[in-house]
């Protein structure tokens, strides 16, 4: 009963923190924040959730393997770097900017989003791996 309430509360809190973390990410280029901080905040939310819920549930909730999320984030960062080369003239990781409806969008922001994903994915992996029940020592492979 107790855990149920806690779990529901956490669920709400989780969503709130997640939104906050995205906000931190987005404004990071101009104010304190950015991919790291945003990602870390999001991962705090996830850790919180891992603590109150069964790690298995968290895995099902996030649906993807968090490690793959991290990898996807990293590929996003690499891609944003490649745009610099592909768009001609630039070198790897050189910033390319477009302005859509007064909102400036650029590869550095894409890069920062990649950072965000990596941080979330990686930290969630750490926490989940540690929190899940201790694995049996492998039966084979030892001589």
């Amino acid at each position: 009963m107790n855990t149920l309430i806690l779990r529901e509360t956490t669920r709400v809190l989780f969503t709130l923190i997640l939104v906050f973390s995205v906000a931190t990410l987005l404004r990071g280029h101009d104010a304190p924040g950015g991919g790291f901080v945003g990602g870390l905040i999001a991962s705090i939310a996830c850790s919180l959730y891992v603590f109150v819920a069964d790690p298995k549930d968290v895995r099902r909730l996030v649906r993807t393997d968090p490690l793959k999320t991290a990898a996807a984030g990293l590929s996003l960062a690499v891609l944003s770097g490649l745009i610099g080369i592909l768009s001609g003239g630039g070198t790897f990781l050189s910033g390319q900017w477009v302005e859509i409806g007064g909102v400036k969008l650029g590869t550095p922001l894409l890069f920062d989003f990649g950072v965000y994903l990596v941080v979330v994915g990686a930290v969630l992996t750490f926490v989940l791996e540690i929190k899940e029940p201790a694995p049996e020592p492998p039966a084979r492979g030892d001589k």
Partner: protein
Amino acid sequence: MAALGIPTARVPVLLRAAVALPAALFAWFCSLVPHVSSGGSLYWEIGWIPQQGIALSFFVDGLSLLFALLITGIGTLIVLYASEYMLGQPQLLRFTAFLLAFMLSMLGLVLADNLIALFIFWELTALTSFLLIGYKHEDAAARRAALQALLVTGVGALAMLAGFVLLGETAGTYSLRELLAGDASLAGASHYPWILALVLAGAFTKSAQYPLHFWLPNAMAAPTPVSAYLHSATMVKAGVFLLARMSPVLGGTEAWSVTLVGFGAVTAVYAALASVTRTDLKQVLAYTTVMALGTCVMFLGLPGEAAGTVHPAAVVAATAFILVHALYKAALFMVVGMIERATGSRDLARHGGLRHVLGPAFAGAALAGVSMAGLPPFIGFVGKELLYSSAYESGFGGFALFAIFAASALVVTSALMVAVLPFFGEMKQSARDAHAVCWQLWIGPVVLGLLGLVAGVATGPVFRALVLPAAAAIAPLPEHFEPGLWHGFSALMLLSLATWAVGALVFWKRPSILSWPAARLDRLPVTGDRVYDATLDGIARFSAALTRRMQSGIQRRYILVVFATLALSVGATLVAKDAIHLPSRVPSVTFGEWALVAVIAASVLTVILTRSRLLAICALGVVGTAISLVFLLRGAPDVALTQLIVETLVVVIVAIVLLKLPDFRNEIRQPLSARWRDGAVAVAVGAATTLVLLAVTERPPQLELTEYFESMAVPGGRGHNIVNVILVDFRALDTLGEISVLVLAAAAVCALMRRRFRYRFDRVQRLQRGHAARSSRARVSREGA
């Protein structure tokens, strides 16, 4: 061999076909004789590292041509011999390849012009002979002998390399032609003693000079064709060749003469004595080989009349003796191989009357043995006469003459032992069991023996074609030199007679005369062999002891050494370079800052001292939080925020993990001395860090980069948070690396915590992907509730 796709049955054919190579080379070198003997030379060069004066270059003069002819000529006979001798043995293809490779290396050695190239071929002969000596590789003795030969000659070779490099440094060239062409002698150079010592070390080990000779008799573990080729005619002569080659450059000084004559004489006499005390035929021959090498070394060292020269006649004698020895020794080795092949034994005591069954072998042995004993009209006689006359004339007259007389007399005994003992006397069991041998086996000894006779009869032409051009490459020829069999009666003639008499006497009274030295020689307290074993053993034990101490397997000790090294080196440099700069005035610090520092210090102490895990973890969190406050106070909100969250995560993760580990209650208390020692190292490291940091922060920082970032952040990076712009734009590559670290760490953690159910989870995911998403979501909610 099967692995190389060559059917085993074809191998003997290949082995026989291999004769073509040395034979062709021999013919080619023969064709060069007229050109070279009239004073010409040839030269080829392939660039290698021209910038350092290193080239693969060859040249042919009298000396190298003499050796090349011996190598290819005897090589032809040996390969022919081996093609029969080795039949039925395993790994014949490899054997043949190594034998030919050896021959080519040896050729390269004697033809090389560049000293580095010479060294390379020198080592190649060592390497190929290593493989050949170890042919019976499943026999421990053969393995030991091979390794011993390689290592002993290897020591010398490396010394020689150092000598060559030093020589090249001093003379400015590695090219022998250039060295020999100019006014070559380096006797006055400041490094001369070192160069001489190092080069001699190479020559003496290769040519088995006492006390470094021991590897050669042991190397008799090789198949007989190998012994006949390597350890009589070719490889062991490499040292002698080198001395001859370097004689114009390094020779003639007092140090040269004393060393060469000293080592050579001792080697010759010792080896001759040792040879007559052996009963294994190959050992007898091996020691006479050592004797011959000693003789050559001694005569290359004999000083001439003028200061700083070598003795011209002695050089001619040494050169002639090289030819003489190669002819008879290869023949006798092949004879011994034949005896072994026919009877299965090379023990003198087990043979007798073999002349009845091994007629051709006896013929070869007789021809070669007579030459070895120095009887006319064989070339051995001419060689010995030259040795006697030049020893008599030279500066070391009495000593050299006595040494060569004693050695020659004993060699007469050895010759009788090898050429007479097994063939005469009553037929023993071995002779009755012996089976006949085919022509490939006996053709070699007979041809070589006959050559000895022919060369003796035609002394003049042979000398003019081969010996004198070779000697001329070493030193100026003696004036009015007329080689010949007969120089009339003289005191030297008497000496020759005495040699035969003494030799025969020793042979006659062998048991009684030789029992005393034989016993002594076997029980020498210090022999090269034992020193070799002791050295290897010592290295093994020393290295084991050292490694046990260094690589103790105790991690704390590793860390301690690393930090002690750090503290020591940084501390010493701080003091030595006078880099310490303490602040001149007491810094102004606010109360809040003091409080922060105090909190951090207290927490750190708590972490160290507490016996409670939970407290330690909390204190760790406090440290991190306090530090993030420092960042916040000094205008670093991004860092502070990140630090704070990271610290939270660290505490969380640490708490999860550490609480699964045993707590501190059962912790092993280290003794006080260990704690003091660790504390001292820790404080030293800390103090050094503080001092360095104080000195660095003494001057205000240079802000050029930061100013650029500040001015470019908005126009270039389109952001107002400079730190973030640096992270995602100015220095995005760092960030890319950093997030790679994160991803990799996550992957590594997954690998580390490999669980069985993870695989199932992966499979579940795959299945889910195949099925409708809804059903899986339903299951989640069902299980979630």
